[in-house]
């Protein structure tokens, strides 16, 4: 019989099992009847003959069982029986079962939830077909590793890129959006090269893509909207394609809607409107205003290294040809899938996985301890069975099955927890527009949870089981009830588990504490500004209604007048940036009467254009010189204020006031004078700017249509004036969208929400780890005490005081906790270094935090030991000894 036949035979038997059983019974009945007939022939009565036949035949049940073994159903039957037995055994000790399942569930749950996040962010490729071919093109300058491109450079790049593949550009710009006749709303918009969606291979859900020729000024009044925009702002109306809206005051036709899968928040952020990039002649020749980002899809026949080299060569050529802007910059490609998360993020993600792994490890050692204790109490039973001839496998099997059942129950519990955690995380990561991170329980996550359960069960179920096997039959049986104390080996094993738990718990606790305090510091930072009693919000003036600097300046003047006259308002200002968020406007300068540094090495600064009252409103101190005032207008002399860092970096010990600067890169330098020095400000968010020099210039001298409004209140809570501020602005221009008008504190907390999610995760891990470790040490001490009650009784009988016994127990627990904490300190210092490196802008006070965490951990350990130790002293000597 070949393998196939054998298999078919076997499977056939398996499926025909019921029939086979019936046949077997019939065959044996036939045999019995024949035998009885035989006996009857020898002269026995019918009843006697039947009885004799049955006697001769033996135990039919046992026979059938042997037959079943021969058929090969044995293992299935045994597994079923083992599982049944395991469940019955577990049900007999519900406390143990509940604790183990909960422990496992928490451990695996924390792990699975973390993995689902990492999976959503890191492992899932971006939702574009063949996303492995996509690159982001970076221009790396000395000030910015991700500098943007100028229109002229982009057009040149596009013209010369056939060997690379296809390139597309985009430019993110905030706009106002309004239905005809309705007040405008703030919208996150972009302009894209018309081939953008085609290159990413994103098919539109409705309508059409851009056509050739729509990238010409005047013919570019067409817009494609995101699905969220369609749902949130247009109620998902069916006739959306062809609908006309006003964007920045100009009428546009909606020509398409993107699919839901287009942007899962990992690549472009919550963009809602997409319009074609349209350059007139002047703009197309512009090499100075760098605003474009460039993406590319490599041709299939070009390798990533070749592609990067090709782009680098193109960039080098441009740098030589147009050194004013491009000198000192190198170009390169970065695979788009890798841009989802930066190096620090990757470190952070790995750290999260490792930390959740720690929680699982702590949970596992608790489980191992529980299982070990259970095994030891059954040591006599095992020894007896072993003496009666049970094989190792037979002894091990029920133990393994038991831990398997536990693991599966724990795994199910974990999935529930992970589900709940995901719900919470999705909620936390949902932004104002309803865009959210897509975290889901996909196959990868399920596989992870399942694998974690299995590995856990096998390792931590087998370890105690193997201990049970090493039991010496003779000793265990001889030592009677005291066999249950477990040998020295068990004690050592348990102690190692407890020490390990405390070491891991300390790492978790220190990491979490560090992060909680770091984020608190970030959220309450007052570095050169004061967010108390401050309201901020953004306003974008539509180009159609405010086409030039005069109109914009006029509006700013009027708005500030109105705001300042509101009751409860101390002062109000407009600026391009708030002091607590990152400033993106990086500019290079030439200093008068200085030999110009080589191109690309000019002094650079982040620039904030501000109105006169800005410094007073946000609370940035003017250290020397004067602030801007009403006389610094578009027509007066250009003036600058520099920060202290800028002053030292550019002028050393010299007084910077009176020096003259001009923005470099222009043919005609527009000189201005430094009139003051302001205190340095530091953002309250993770600020990735390499440029640390800060520079201010009056808003009136270079008006910007998009501004941040800041209002300082006096005598009233800032929340109380929110509505009057909004009303004042709407009264001024109903077509004006005001975005995120809220207290400065609220907007800082909102901006740091990702860090807050991280803090919550780390905090949860630490809490879990700490409780599990405390539970572990509590359990071990309690058990040891129960086992040593006889010894304590003798001690008391010999004259030991209650205090001595308590101290004895306490010391043994404290020793474990101390050794664990010492080992954990190394890990805690390691993790603090990791966190510090991953968040360079956050300030961590690591030494006191780690010391505090260690002390807290030891205190909790002592408490966990003291509770059972207290009872140890009260042992009734007579009773304990009599029980022996």
């Amino acid at each position, binding site marked *: 019989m070949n393998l196939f*036949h*054998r298999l078919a*035979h076997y499977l056939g038997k398996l499926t025909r099992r019921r029939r086979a059983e019936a046949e077997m019974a019939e065959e044996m009945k036939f045999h019995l009847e024949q035998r009885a007939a035989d006996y009857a022939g020898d002269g026995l009565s019918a009843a006697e003959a039947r009885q004799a036949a049955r006697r001769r*035949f033996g135990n039919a049940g*046992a*026979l059938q069982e042997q037959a079943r*073994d021969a058929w090969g159903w044995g293992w299935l039957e045994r597994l079923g029986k083992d599982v049944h037995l395991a469940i019955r055994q577990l049900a007999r000790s519900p406390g143990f079962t509940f604790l183990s399942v909960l422990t496992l569930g928490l451990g695996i749950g924390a792990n699975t939830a973390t993995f689902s996040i990492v999976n959503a962010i890191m492992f899932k490729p971006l939702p574009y077909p063949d996303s492995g071919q996509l690159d982001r093109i970076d221009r790396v300058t000395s000030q910015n590793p991700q500098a943007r491109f100028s229109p002229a450079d982009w057009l040149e790049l596009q013209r010369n890129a056939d060997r690379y593949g296809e390139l597309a550009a985009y430019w993110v710009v905030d706009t106002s959006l309004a239905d005809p006749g309705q007040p405008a709303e703030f919208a996150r918009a972009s302009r894209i090269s018309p081939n953008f969606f085609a290159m990413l291979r994103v098919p539109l859900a409705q309508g059409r893509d851009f056509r050739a020729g729509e990238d010409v000024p005047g013919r570019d009044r067409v817009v494609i909207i995101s699905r969220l925009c369609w749902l949130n702002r247009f109620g998902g109306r069916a006739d959306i394609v062809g609908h006309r809206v006003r964007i920045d005051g100009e009428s546009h036709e909606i020509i398409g809607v993107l699919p839901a899968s287009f942007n899962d928040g990992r690549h472009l952020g919550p963009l809602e409107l997409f319009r074609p990039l349209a350059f007139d002649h002047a703009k197309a020749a512009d090499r100075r205003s760098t605003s474009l980002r460039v993406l590319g899809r490599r041709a299939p026949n070009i390798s990533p290294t070749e592609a990067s080299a090709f782009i680098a060569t193109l960039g080098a050529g441009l740098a030589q040809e147009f050194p004013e802007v491009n000198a000192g910059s190198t170009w390169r490609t970065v695979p788009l899938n890798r841009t989802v998360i930066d190096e620090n993020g990757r470190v952070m993600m790995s750290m999260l996985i490792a930390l959740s792994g720690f929680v699982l490890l702590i949970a596992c050692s608790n489980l191992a301890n529980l299982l070990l204790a259970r095994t030891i109490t059954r040591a006599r039973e095992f020894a007896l069975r072993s003496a009666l001839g049970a094989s190792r496998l037979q002894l091990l099997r029920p133990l393994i099955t038991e831990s398997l059942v536990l693991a599966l129950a724990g795994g199910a519990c974990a999935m529930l927890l992970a589900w709940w955690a995901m719900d919470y995380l999705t909620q936390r990561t949902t932004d104002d527009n309803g865009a959210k991170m897509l975290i889901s329980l996909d196959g990868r996550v399920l596989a992870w949870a399942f694998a974690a359960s299995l590995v856990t069960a096998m390792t931590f179920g087998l370890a105690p089981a193997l201990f049970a096997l090493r039991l010496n039959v003779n000793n265990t049986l001889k030592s009677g009830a005291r066999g249950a104390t477990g040998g020295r080996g068990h004690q050592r094993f348990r102690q190692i588990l407890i020490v390990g738990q405390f070491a891991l718990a300390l790492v978790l606790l220190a990491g979490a504490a560090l992060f909680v305090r770091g984020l608190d510091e970030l959220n309450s930072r007052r570095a050169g500004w004061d967010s108390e009693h401050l309201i901020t919000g953004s306003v974008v003036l539509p180009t159609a209604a405010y086409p030039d600097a005069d109109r914009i300046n006029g509006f700013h003047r009027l708005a500030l007048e109105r705001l300042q006259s509101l009751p409860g308002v101390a002062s109000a200002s407009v600026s391009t940036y708030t002091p607590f968020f990152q400033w993106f406007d990086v500019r290079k300068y030439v200093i008068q009467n200085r030999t110009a540094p080589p191109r690309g090495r000019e002094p650079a600064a982040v620039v904030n254009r501000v109105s006169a009252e800005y410094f007073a409103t946000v609370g940035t101190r003017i250290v020397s010189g004067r602030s801007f005032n009403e006389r610094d207008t578009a027509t007066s002399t250009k003036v600058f204020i520099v920060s202290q860092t800028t002053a030292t970096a550019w002028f050393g010990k010299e007084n910077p006031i009176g020096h003259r600067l001009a923005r470099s890169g222009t043919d005609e330098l527009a000189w201005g004078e430094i009139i003051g020095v302001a205190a340095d400000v530091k953002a309250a968010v993770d600020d990735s700017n390499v440029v640390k020099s800060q520079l201010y210039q009056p808003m009136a001298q270079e008006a910007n249509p998009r501004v941040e409004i800041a209002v300082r209140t006096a005598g009233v809570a800032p929340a109380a004036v929110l509505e009057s501020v909004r009303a004042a602005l709407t009264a001024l221009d109903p077509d004006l969208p005001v975005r995120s008008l809220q207290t400065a504190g609220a907007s800082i907390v909102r901006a740091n929400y990702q860090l807050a999610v991280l803090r919550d995760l780390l905090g949860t891990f630490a809490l879990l780890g700490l409780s599990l470790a405390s539970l572990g040490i509590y359990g071990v001490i309690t058990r040891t005490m129960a086992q040593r009650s006889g010894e304590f009784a003798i001690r008391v009988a010999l004259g030991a005081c209650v205090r001595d016994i308590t101290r004895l127990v306490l010391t043994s627990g404290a020793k474990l906790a101390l050794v664990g904490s010492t080992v954990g300190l190394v890990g805690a210092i390691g993790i603090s270094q990791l966190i510090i490196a991953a968040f360079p802008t956050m300030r961590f006070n690591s030494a006191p935090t780690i010391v505090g965490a260690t002390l807290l951990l030891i205190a909790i350990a002592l408490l966990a030991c003291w509770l059972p130790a207290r009872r140890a002293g009260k042992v009734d000597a007579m009773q304990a000894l009599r029980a022996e």
Partner: protein
Amino acid sequence: MAEKLELLSGTLDLLVLRVLNRGELHGWGITNRLEQLSKKALQVDEGSLYPALYRMEAKGWIEAAWKQTENNRRAKYYTLTRTGRKQLETEQKLWDRTSAIMAMVLDSA
């Protein structure tokens, strides 16, 4: 009646195969035939016969089919397969060698 012998372990398979080589038989028939052939010197234990039958069936040495007996009862008849015949040859040879060696040693000792 001669003293009854318990079967040597491992020999039951050979005996069953040998008996079936002469034609199909049901379990009861096999018991009877063995007792008959050994002139009642062998007592076949049902407790080992049926498991042995199922084991050999699973190994593919014998096949079973339900048929009518002479007196119109349903019974399960076993027949030898090709593999079974080969197995019979192997076991027969093995037994011959074993018994020859046993005889040799016992005689000369």
